[in-house]
């Protein structure tokens, strides 16, 4: 395991290796060498399974972090690959040639975060959202509550009968329940 990590650090621009023993390690890799690294892991190191692929929006640092979770069945070990991409140029190499199922994830990321994966099949078709006309909803600058109230309306909750507030209103009706 350590040999492999050392080899990876030597050959690729890997930084920040974080071990989460006993079954998982995450490492951060440069955007340009990420696809090459993942291909290497799949073909040479036995990480043949793509568990999932997702994205984290770090709006404060102006980056999206893509997470590729790979699994090695022989060693029962998972490897998380973190790739930072800029929010200004949200584009990443598609890995649908490595795992055919990746294009579903990429389609979802395209819809939810607006990340482009050139060459990925059916990328611009609607996936979960139909006829979406706003900025991608999982981006953190998207205000879901405001959007929900504007489009779907809002219904007030039932009136509170919390005893303390109720007694205040009963005892001091002229002051609107304020006993000052």
């Amino acid at each position: 395991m350590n040999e492999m990590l050392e080899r990876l650090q030597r050959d690729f621009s890997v930084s920040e290796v974080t071990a989460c023993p006993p079954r998982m390690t995450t490492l951060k890799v440069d955007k340009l060498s990420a696809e090459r690294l993942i291909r290497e892991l799949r073909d040479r190191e036995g990480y043949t399974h793509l568990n999932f692929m997702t994205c984290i929006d770090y709006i404060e640092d102006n980056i999206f972090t893509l997470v590729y979770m790979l699994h090695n069945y022989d060693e029962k070990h998972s490897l998380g690959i973190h790739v930072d991409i800029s929010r200004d140029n949200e584009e990443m190499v598609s890995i649908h040639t490595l795992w055919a199922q990746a294009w579903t994830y990429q389609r979802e990321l395209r819809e939810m975060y607006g990340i482009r994966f050139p060459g990925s099949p059916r990328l611009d078709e609607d996936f979960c959202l139909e006829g979406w006309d706003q900025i991608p909803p999982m981006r953190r600058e998207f205000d879901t509550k405001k959007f929900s109230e504007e489009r779907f309306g809002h219904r007030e909750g039932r009136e509170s009968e919390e005893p303390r507030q109720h007694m205040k209103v009963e005892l001091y009706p002229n002051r609107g329940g304020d006993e000052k």
Partner: protein
Amino acid sequence: MIKSLNTEDTLENAGLTEEEQKLFSNARPQAYEPYPIKAVEDFANWARANSLWILAFGTGCGAIELRPLMTARFDASRYGVSGRPTPRQSSVFVIGGYASVKTLKRIVRSYEQMQGPKFVICLGICPVNGGMYFDSYNTVNLFDQYLPVDLYITGCMPRPEVLVAGIMELQTMIKAGKCNGANRYVENFDWYKANQKKVIKNWDMPDYNW
């Protein structure tokens, strides 16, 4: 008994292409008029109340409660309730919990295809005010803006017992002739349709699905 069809007032079906417009009806929905003799109408209502056929369309997480309802423990067949695979044969639409916009489109389409008289039961808190999805980007908050609701069963999630209680309440209401949600839908058709089109942006189906 159905009112005679007014052929002059038709729907636009603007969401369809010109070719598709020839394939779909553009007639407006028609209101149901009760039988002139009250005893006959009462008898019809009694029959309706005791043969509630639920559309087997699980629209949200609450659909999980419909399965135990049908099996031996709660055995909804006792009340004449049964599941139906197609909207053409069913009379009750149970909205099982939240309705996302994508599902709402299918709900509208299925509801309009159901034969009258038809009833809508909303299960759970989500169709009332959004519930825990009150700030979601794809879940409607006020379900009664889009379809007429006859009965709410609130809770998250309501157990099958409550659903049985709700069905019995619905039966009582039908027997009393109070469940006329389908007529409300026809009378306020333009309002409902405008609300539906406000949230369903890719409207590529007829305005009324006969």
